[in-house]
């Protein structure tokens, strides 16, 4: 499968465009890096690819067709701050099962413990919660993952563990990953190729 951004343009509130005619293609089972200075529109492009935002110009295509606007979104987005991605009044178990029922091997790959399922989001550390957010995003229907600075607030050991697990999942399940980061050393490790915005 191929996720494609074709001639994407986007601006906030009629201001100067953040993105102007951007093309990008992401293949299944591949990890593509996306970098650029602050304010170049990396996260905006990620949100457009995942249909969290609609572009003012251009189209997002999956295998040449418009991506579906209803049902499970095959393009899942995970961003830097997991606490804003979860319902603070839901326990972890409910947050995960909203998407799917993960098996033990997936929990293990991401270092997630079943005991957490009985806790609220604020009762986990940032790193623990980010693992949960990633797990939830890897439901069976997910074909592409937009990973926007997912490990930038984690320590190097947690970062390395999470990315090794993601590289595994990407290969096993043929999921395409867009890794957005400022950290060129990290992208050099995880991505086959990195584009600069």
């Amino acid at each position, binding site marked *: 499968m191929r996720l494609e951004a074709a001639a994407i343009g986007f601006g906030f509130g009629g201001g100067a465009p953040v993105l102007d005619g951007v093309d990008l293609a992401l293949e299944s089972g591949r990890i593509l890096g996306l970098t650029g200075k*602050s304010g170049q529109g990396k996260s905006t492009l990620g949100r457009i690819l995942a249909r969290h935002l609609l572009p003012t110009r251009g189209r997002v295509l999956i295998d040449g067709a418009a991506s579906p606007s209803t049902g499970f979104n095959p393009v899942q987005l995970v961003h830097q701050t997991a606490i804003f991605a979860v319902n603070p009044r839901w326990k972890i178990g409910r947050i995960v099962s909203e998407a799917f029922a993960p098996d033990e091997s997936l929990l293990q790959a991401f270092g997630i413990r079943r005991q957490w399922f009985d806790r609220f989001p604020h009762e986990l*550390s940032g790193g623990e919660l980010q693992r949960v957010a990633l797990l939830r995003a890897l439901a069976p229907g997910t074909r592409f993952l937009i990973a926007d600075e997912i490990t930038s*607030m984690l*320590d*190097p*050991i947690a970062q390395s563990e999470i*990315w090794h697990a993601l590289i595994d999942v990407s290969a096993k399940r043929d999921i395409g990953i867009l890794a957005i980061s400022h950290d*060129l*050393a990290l992208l050099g490790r995880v991505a086959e190729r990195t584009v600069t915005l």
Partner: protein
Amino acid sequence: MSVLEIERLTVSFHRRDGLRRRITTDCVRDVSLAVARGEVLALFGASGAGKSLLAHAVMGLLPPNALAGGTMRFDGHVLDAPAQAALRGNRIALIPQSVGHLDPLATVGQQLRWAARRAGRPMTAPGAVAEALSRFDLAPAVAGTFPHTLSGGMARRVMLAMTMASGADLVLADEPSNGLDADNTARVFRCLKSFAEAGKAVIVISHDLPAALKIADRVVLLDRGQVVAEERADAFTSDGEALCAGYARSIWNALPQNGFSRACHEA
């Protein structure tokens, strides 16, 4: 001589469970460290290790349900609550993690003058504000702007300029590079180094180890509230064989620019 000495600092939180039993959680345990003039000490640890809490304990800005134990000394004098209140903002400065701590209703110039006045060194000379800003690569026009118009990197440098204006002897910077790109990160860290070169003691809290190592003399590693290692910054080279602690070595080798390994460290 050390500007700040912390001896066996413990910060605990109390709450009651459903049966009204008292539950105590120690978030910082038995931490001892010292920092001298002209020195940059990096405080490194995973999220939740207690780094920010430690900084807030030094400032005397802990939440009301927190209890601090142990002793702290500033310039040889006991740093208790009245001393903290007197020294905060003039001799001890904290650069908070979020640039949202700037006053949204005051211009940068006003806030810079407030910081200077509070420390008893008012900026009266014409051009003083512009000069204070220029030291941090900020144009004079920035003085007339409000914080929401600044980028993250500029806002961070405004806070650095305010710290400089206060003339503090001890500067604590909490995650100064959060959300900044590589250029801005390098710029902010260079500014912090210039504080140390001007004779201040600097404690920089960061999870960006490579950036912190560029300016730090020593690194203290915290894990779950405890100091697990103290290393010289120059020991973080090649494959980390000069590092004394296993945890430090694991962290070093997990960096993408090194081994990117996921080896668990020995407890």
